[in-house]
C-alpha cells in the first residue's frame, strides 16, 4: 500500500462513520474506502466503485476488529492520476489504490465521486481535495 491520503483539515472531527470490514483484511490509515457490501468496506482498487471516505484508523489483519471508521468531512492531500485536472473539478476513485482521477457522470450516479480538487493538479501530483461524503 502507498499514497495514502493525508489530512490537511478535518471539519466536525472529520465526521467519522463506522463501517464493517473483514477481520483478515489490512487497511492502512488514509486509504480510500470502497463500499463492497452491506455497509462493508475494503481498500479501493476498482474503477467506478462507490467510495465512502478516508480510513481514519489502521486496521491490521486478524487483529479481531471488524469495523473501521471513515473520515467523511475534511480536506486531504491525495495523489491524482496522469492528466491535468482543473481547479474545482470533481474527482473519483480509480482502479489504482489511493489515486483519484477526473470524475464523469457515471461516477456521480455510482457514488464514486470522492470530492473536489482545490488546486490545479498536474500529472500524478498530490493536491488538496475537499471530501464531503
Amino acid at each position, binding site marked *: 500500500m502507498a499514497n495514502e491520503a493525508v489530512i490537511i483539515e478535518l471539519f466536525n472531527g472529520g465526521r467519522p462513520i463506522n463501517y464493517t470490514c473483514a477481520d483478515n483484511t489490512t487497511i492502512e490509515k488514509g486509504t480510500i474506502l470502497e463500499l463492497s457490501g452491506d455497509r462493508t468496506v475494503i481498500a479501493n482498487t476498482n474503477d467506478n466503485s462507490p467510495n465512502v471516505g478516508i480510513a481514519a484508523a489502521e486496521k491490521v489483519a486478524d487483529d479481531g476488529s471488524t469495523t473501521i471508521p471513515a473520515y467523511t468531512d475534511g*480536506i486531504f492531500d491525495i495523489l491524482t492520476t496522469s492528466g491535468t485536472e482543473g*481547479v474545482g473539478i470533481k474527482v473519483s476513485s480509480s482502479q489504482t489504490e489511493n489515486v483519484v482521477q477526473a470524475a464523469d457522470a457515471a461516477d456521480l450516479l455510482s457514488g464514486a465521486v470522492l470530492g473536489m480538487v482545490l488546486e*490545479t493538479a498536474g500529472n500524478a501530483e498530490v493536491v488538496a481535495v475537499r471530501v*464531503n461524503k
Partner: protein
Amino acid sequence: MAAEAVIIELFNGGRPIRYTCADGATIEKGAIAVLTDPRTVITHAAVDTPIVGIVAAEKVANDGATTVSVYTDGIFDMTAAAAGVTALGALCAGSGTANMITVADANDILQSSDVGMCLEAHANDEVAAVRVNK
C-alpha cells in the same frame, strides 16, 4: 455588488472553511465564493465556475487580510437570475450574474458549479431558500 445570500439557518456553525483571497479584493459577506487556483476564492461573476460556498465575513480591499471564511453548511436565501426558474428540489448552480443562481445541469456538478438544492420553487429574480452543503 448586490444579491448577496442571506443566512436562514447554519448547521455546525455553517462549517466555515478558510480560503486564500487577494488583499486587493473586495468580497462582501454573503457573496457566492468561486474557487481559483490554488485554494483561493473570488466573488462569483460568471457561469460554469467552481463554487465552494457563501462568504462568511466582509473583506475590504487592501485591509491586509489574505484569507476569508466561507460557509459550507446551511440554508440561505438566494436570488434566481432572470430566466433562472428552478423547480422545488432541483439543484441550482451559479448563473452569469453575480450572486444569482439558475438551474444546474450535469456539467455543473462535475465542475462543482452547483450551489445546492432549492427548497422552494424559484421564479425569475425571486429570492428563495437553498440548501448549501459544499
